[in-house]
């Protein structure tokens, strides 16, 4: 499992716009860099990030090799109801990881 650092408000008012930040440990090897022997290293990137809120996709981004190592992404969602918010990263070599947080809306 890759280390993840998420900033998600745990409690918020209904209708408020909340900013979410997500950082994940990943090399994001571009596929354009030679190794010490001069051979190109195979691409190994995360190519999709998806945020689901109460089961529905509310944000989704396609990453290219131009996203920095240890990808950082920030975006906003509207707090509509209490429920789970999940974050899924998918990448090369079968990489997939999902983290879930719970938002309480008052």
């Amino acid at each position, binding site marked *: 499992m890759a280390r993840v650092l998420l900033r998600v408000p745990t409690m918020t008012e209904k209708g408020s*716009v*909340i*900013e979410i930040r997500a950082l994940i440990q990943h090399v994001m090897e*571009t596929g*354009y*860099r030679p190794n010490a022997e001069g051979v190109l290293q195979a691409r190994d990137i995360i190519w999709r990030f998806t945020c689901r*809120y109460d089961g*529905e*996709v*509310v*944000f*989704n*981004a*396609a*990453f*290219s*090799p*131009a*996203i*920095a*190592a240890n*990808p*950082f*992404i*920030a*975006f*906003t*969602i*509207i707090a*509509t109801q209490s429920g789970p918010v999940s974050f899924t990263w998918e990448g090369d070599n079968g990489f997939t990881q999902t983290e879930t947080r719970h938002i309480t809306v008052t």
Partner: protein
Amino acid sequence: MTVSRRVLLAAPGALLLSAPTRADQQRLAAALLDFTGGQPMREGRVRLDVSPLVENGNAVPISVMVETPMTTADHVRRIGVFNERNPQPNVITAQFGPRSGRAFLATHIRLATSQALVAAAEMNDGSFWSQRVEVIVTLAACIEG
């Protein structure tokens, strides 16, 4: 050649950079065409924030914000960020909806060298908006052996 080698060596890196080639420009144009599907794209509504001068191209903070109330009637569907001189023109493409609250994203990106960045947005009415920013990278990525 009237400029001495010493002067050239002492010149700031930015002055030594070659201009983007026609191939670079065509690749960026093709990526934008792919994003818009051939629809016209206008300058405006999109704000791409990035430092005009960066010390290292391996992790450059950028953010994109689009002027829109993000209601069902008026919202951004997609934001794309593209570059001129990396090995690939695509950086990130993100999908939004009324539940996003704001048409905003921030991330850290790689820039192989000094170049242009373009942020483009597709609105729910099918119109396309963009902003282009030039960035100078003072230190090439990866210099330690």
